[in-house]
């Protein structure tokens, strides 16, 4: 399953202080600005990375369905945010128009800075690929922000958390393409690096790391393999069977009522999902001559999803919950030829009712 050759010269080993060096080189030598998971005020949020103290290096997330705790450790996997926060912000100020429509201007989307995404996860990288295909050039806010990303540095997961299922979704826990540099923490000190582009190779060469020993590469590959296996043993059927089964059972109202019986329609899953992209437009008048169109996040679990003036196409919660699952597993492949779920498990972790997507899919396809 893992197509990485055992050539040790592709890997380099350093320690966590080399991450600091890496940040400095990108900032100072290449003049880039870094965005990533930022440890701030006891939480891991999203923001600008200026140095090693911004990285969540000495915390790890403990998760269960409906539970998230940050504790001491060195295996940070997820927080409720994702690169979506940068690429497709929750409030996108779109356009300001005068009341005779003679003047219009666009605010806050033209990013001319060259950014580097630092320390995003393999599932995040795949989520960006999903958004690229789904939104791509069509949403100018996304397009401009996406273009401002000049390099991507991924932190691979050697020990996924309890809610991770990236393996079965073919989105992790390691990366093989579309990145510049990837690193993984072998333990709390040693970090193994690889490059995925010529830019990545150039940058890595400046770190003056030592080439990995055979034992270290073996250790890395073994841990990767185990992590992949752990995140792959999730569903009772193959993905193809799951998709067929979900579609066949789409009309079974009783089944979906049962599956969604604990859902309260809060939309947390939509907001933490790194691939959910739905937007709701909001209109207001700002000052004398400014009509503002703003796009905010919305989600298919919210009541208003499918509501129109004089009617509602999804008034019952089960239809909206069903859309969440069908979209990720069946409709995304029909729309963009890849699954819409990357198996990050955020929707499970941040569900206030502890609903486990994996269980729901298994329930939907069994029997």
């Amino acid at each position, binding site marked *: 399953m893992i197509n990485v050759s055992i050539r040790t010269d592709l890997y380099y080993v350093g320690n966590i202080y080399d991450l600091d060096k890496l940040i400095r080189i990108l900032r100072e030598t290449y003049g880039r600005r870094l965005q990533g998971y930022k440890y701030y005020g006891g939480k891991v949020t999203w923001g600008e990375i200026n140095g090693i103290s911004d990285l969540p290096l000495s915390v790890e997330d403990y998760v269960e369905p409906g539970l998230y705790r940050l504790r001491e450790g060195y295996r940070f996997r997820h927080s409720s945010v994702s690169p979506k926060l940068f690429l497709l912000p929750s409030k996108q100020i*779109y*356009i300001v*128009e005068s*009341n*005779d*429509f*003679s003047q*219009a*201007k*666009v605010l806050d989307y033209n990013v001319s800075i060259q950014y580097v995404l630092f320390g995003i996860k393999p599932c995040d990288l795949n989520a960006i690929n999903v958004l690229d295909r789904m*939104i791509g*050039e*069509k*949403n*100018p*806010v*996304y*397009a*401009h922000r996406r*273009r401002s990303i000049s390099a991507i540095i991924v932190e691979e997961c050697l020990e996924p958390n309890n809610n991770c299922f990236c393996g079965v979704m073919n989105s992790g826990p390691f990366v093989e393409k579309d990145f510049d540099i990837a690193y993984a923490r072998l333990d709390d000190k040693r970090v193994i690096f690889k490059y995925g582009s010529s830019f990545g190779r150039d940058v890595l060469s400046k770190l003056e790391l030592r080439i990995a020993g055979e034992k270290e590469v073996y250790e890395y590959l073994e841990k990767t393999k185990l992590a992949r296996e752990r995140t792959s043993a999730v569903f009772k059927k193959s993905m193809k069977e799951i998709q067929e089964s979900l*579609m066949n059972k*789409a*009309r079974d*109202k009783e089944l979906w009522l049962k599956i969604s019986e604990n859902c309260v329609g809060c939309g947390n899953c939509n907001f933490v999902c790194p691939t959910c*992209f*739905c*937007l*709701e*437009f909001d*209109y*207001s*008048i700002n000052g004398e001559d400014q*009509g503002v*169109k703003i*796009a905010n996040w*919305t989600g*298919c679990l919210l009541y*208003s*999803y*499918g*509501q*129109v*003036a*004089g009617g509602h*196409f*999804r*008034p*019952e919660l*089960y*239809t*909206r919950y*069903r*859309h969440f699952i*069908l*979209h990720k597993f*069946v*409709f*995304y492949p*029909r*729309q963009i030829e890849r699954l819409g779920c990357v198996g990050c498990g955020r929707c499970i972790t941040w569900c206030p009712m502890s609903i486990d997507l994996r269980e729901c899919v298994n329930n939907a396809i069994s029997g």
Partner: protein
Amino acid sequence: MQVVNLIEVLKSKKAIVVRTIDEAPGVKTFALKLSGEYDIKPGQFSMLYYWGIGEAPISLANLPLKTGSSTIIEHTVRSTGVVTNTIVENARIGSVLGVRGPYGKGWPLEKHENMNIVIVAGGIGLAPLRPVIKYIEKNREKYKDVYLLYGARTPADMLYKYEHESYSRMPGVKVLLSSDVRVEGWSHHVGFVTDLVKYVDVRTEETVAYVCGPEVMMRVAVKKLLDKGFRKDNIFLSLERRMRCGVGICGTCQFGHYFVCRDGPVFSYSEIEDYLWIEGV
């Protein structure tokens, strides 16, 4: 690759109301004058923007009229929600509305030359089909027999009443009307518009059906048309969903794997047969 300019995507054009027509209780048609070209086709829609209040997706209700350096389009609006209510109540001759579009795929009229056309419309659903009738009127020789089956809750709720006679005067065009409820003086069918499908007398293999109305009505229409022998890919439906952007980025108009604003609003039945019968998909 050139990034699409946001201004071009989501900026509304200035449209001046040049005429309003009261169609039915709470329903008005607005003729809007835009400067320059606005190349909208039957079945496509615009986002009508009442400045500062909001936008609503409204289908084209007449063929666009190009006059010199401007274009006049018509949209029929039923007062249903905040935006449409504001437009219907407030917009009058000289008012300025915002228009962006055209969006979506329209009726494949050009593909259906030399065929019979059966139009089935319910209530406000006649609005997106009116430009079809107008197009046929203009290009009468290109199409064979035409049926217009139109029904509304009451005769008073019908749109374009002042034109129905002119439709039936067109050669080879049969107009069959229906009112859901019995009303004094109504000489046409009483019942659902879909009841009228049985009066359609055409060779179904060379006939296409264009259907628009409430979704329940469209489902019944599809069943009856299929029973009559219509091919799945000869039945076309114009769907409604919650639409915000019009260009496939907001995601709220999803219907199965389709974005109704971009992939529709007109679909052939064969495209959507997986989804049409699933409640709330």
